[in-house]
């Protein structure tokens, strides 16, 4: 066909307007357009994360208060100081228990006074005749007969108190009161629980727990070796009546008071130590830990089965990258911990492409996406060879929130967990492939990066009380939609790090 005739057809074709009912066309387009997918904005995750952090910090602080204020043990029940009459008791040396008929009758009532009337002793009270130990009992459990009317003791008073010979019950109780002097609270015994003339008594008092602690008092009246801290709460009078149970045990046998005192002190220390463990075990609250990781990752991209996906898959190879992050971990329940922090991930993948692109007759770049079939001198488009061999670099800054379960084996611990991370920022550099298999500058795309989901397995070795060597294997996936095809970026990671316990 002659070129002149071709041009006639082309001119007619290119400049001919066919009448179109634009309203109908627009309506048809609107009907066919996919409803815009609602962007899933996980708005709730941030306040939720914040809530978890605040809650964890709050719980941690409470645990800290209890640790400081109470000598060591926390318990949901109350154990309190009780002195009772040995005359009515029988000691079973085998079982170490005391049975007493008067026990249930013994009652101590406390009353609040405006001014402390009793000066706390400045040193440990002792008495030469204290070797008589029939009266030395360790009262471990609250008795059903003990009633605190104004004071609800919390925390634990783990100390040894000795009452001098002819000391009257009031004096005995003033010993007790001395532990709460700074709270302007004193105690006074009532009833017949403590006889008037008794041999010196050695009392190990434990005041356990409370969930209503308010005040913290350090008992300075007791010698340093015996000094412990107690937390005492003054309750509202109406809420005062709380019965306690007491189980009494003897501390030691006769004629070895000094040794037994030491034993008692050691015993107290042991109790404190064990109580610490007990407390941690019961509360499940472990100290907050800051973990810092640094590691390497493998970037693996996968695409759907479309031709575009295949083209991109062929162009983009798996690569390596590196990652790092820090994480605050809080124990929330038992061995369950929640962590939050920052993750930086850099993925590097090689983009390799060979092909052609289109220029016009002046060798100016016309359009990347014109098909090869437009090659025609009459159209003034030409194809040129093009080779691209370049790294695709993507960087993400994420906010991970993790849930993990820790299992300890001596100094080693294993901590499997799950996490979800949300993008805070992202950078990309490199190429992608468009519908026609032509490379496009990655920076020109608008990326919508969804959450990164993953699982991890942490290993740790305790170096010291506060320091841990950490290892972590993690696998995560995130979806990337570049406007053409959806890509799933999988990132297996291997990290090493250190953890510091606060």
């Amino acid at each position, binding site marked *: 066909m002659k070129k002149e005739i071709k041009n006639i*057809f082309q*001119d007619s074709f*290119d400049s001919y307007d*066919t*009448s179109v009912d634009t309203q109908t066309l627009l309506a048809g*387009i609107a009907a066919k*357009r996919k409803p815009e997918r609602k962007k899933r904005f996980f708005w709730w995750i941030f306040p939720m994360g914040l809530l978890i952090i605040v809650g964890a910090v709050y719980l941690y602080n409470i645990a800290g208060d209890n640790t400081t204020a109470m000598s060591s043990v926390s318990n949901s029940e109350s154990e309190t100081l009780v002195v009772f009459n040995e005359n009515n008791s029988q000691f079973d040396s085998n079982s170490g228990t005391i049975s007493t008929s008067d026990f249930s009758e013994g009652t101590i009532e406390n009353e609040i006074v405006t001014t402390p009337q009793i000066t706390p002793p400045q040193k440990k009270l002792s008495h030469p005749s204290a070797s008589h130990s029939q009266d030395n009992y360790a009262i471990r459990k609250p008795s059903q007969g003990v009633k605190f009317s104004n004071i609800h003791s919390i925390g634990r008073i783990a100390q040894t108190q000795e009452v001098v010979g002819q000391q009257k019950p009031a004096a005995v109780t003033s010993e007790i009161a001395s532990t709460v002097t700074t709270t302007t609270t004193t105690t006074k015994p009532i009833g017949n629980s403590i006889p008037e003339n008794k041999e010196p008594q050695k009392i190990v008092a434990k005041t356990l727990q409370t969930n209503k602690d308010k005040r913290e008092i350090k008992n300075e009246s007791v010698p340093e070796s015996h000094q412990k801290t107690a937390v005492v709460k003054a309750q509202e009078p109406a809420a005062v009546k709380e019965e306690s149970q007491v189980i009494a045990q003897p501390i030691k046998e006769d004629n070895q008071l000094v040794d037994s005192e030491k034993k008692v002190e050691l015993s107290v220390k042991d109790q404190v130590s064990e109580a610490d463990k007990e407390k941690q075990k019961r509360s499940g609250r472990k100290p907050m830990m800051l973990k810092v990781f640094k590691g390497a990752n493998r970037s693996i991209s996968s695409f759907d089965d479309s031709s575009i996906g295949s083209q991109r898959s062929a162009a983009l190879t798996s690569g390596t990258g590196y990652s790092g992050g820090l994480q605050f971990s809080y124990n929330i329940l038992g061995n369950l911990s929640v962590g939050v922090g920052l993750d930086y991930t850099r993925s590097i993948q090689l983009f390799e492409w060979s092909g052609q692109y289109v220029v016009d007759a002046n060798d100016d770049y*016309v359009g990347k996406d*014109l098909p090869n079939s437009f090659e025609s001198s009459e159209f003034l488009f030409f194809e040129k060879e093009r080779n691209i061999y370049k790294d695709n670099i993507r960087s993400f800054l994420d906010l991970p929130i993790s849930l993990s379960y820790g299992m300890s084996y001596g100094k080693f611990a294993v901590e499997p967990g799950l996490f979800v991370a949300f993008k805070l920022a992202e950078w990309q550099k490199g190429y992608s492939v468009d519908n026609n298999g032509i490379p496009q500058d990655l920076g020109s795309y608008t990326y919508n990066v969804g959450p990164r989901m993953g699982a991890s397995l942490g290993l740790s070795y305790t170096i010291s009380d506060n320091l841990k060597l950490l290892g972590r294997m993690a696998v995560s996936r995130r979806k990337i939609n570049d406007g053409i095809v959806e890509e799933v970026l999988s990132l297996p990671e291997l990290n090493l790090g250190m953890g510091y316990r606060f």
Partner: protein
Amino acid sequence: MIQSNLINRLRKGEEPAFKELVLATSSRLMTVARVYADSAEDAQDVLQDAYVICFEKVATFSGEEPKAFYAWMKKITINLALYKNRKKYKKVETSLDAVGIDRAFDAQILSSLNRKELMELIFSLPDGYRQVFALFAIEGFSHKEIADRLGIKASTSRSQFLRAKKVLQEKIKQLEKFDVA
């Protein structure tokens, strides 16, 4: 036809820009669709689909030239129309006889026709003939490329084109007679 800033506005997803694009290009693209689709209704459908694809994929178009953007849209329209009629071409292929007539068009006669008459002539070509004729005579594809695109043999493309020319010549003759009368 297309303003240079329209492309950027489209990339940003501005709805008014899409409407402007439709108003600015629909009549030209409808011509394209009419040539490559097998009916006016089909052409309307093709055009709607082409715009939908343009809207969804505009982010992938990285050029800045309105000329290139229009070429991109035109390409989408042609591809869609041909894709929808692909099965039809294969049926046409079997029914065509080799056509030996290859008398050249008279350029003078063609020039005397106005655009509307010329396009009406093309529109009036039967399915199969019309597409091959447009791809060869207007888009400049070779018969091999047309054959690849339509899934037919190159020889079939050639014969369809010759058949289309013959039909056009006859129609032009009829127009000449009508004008003379």
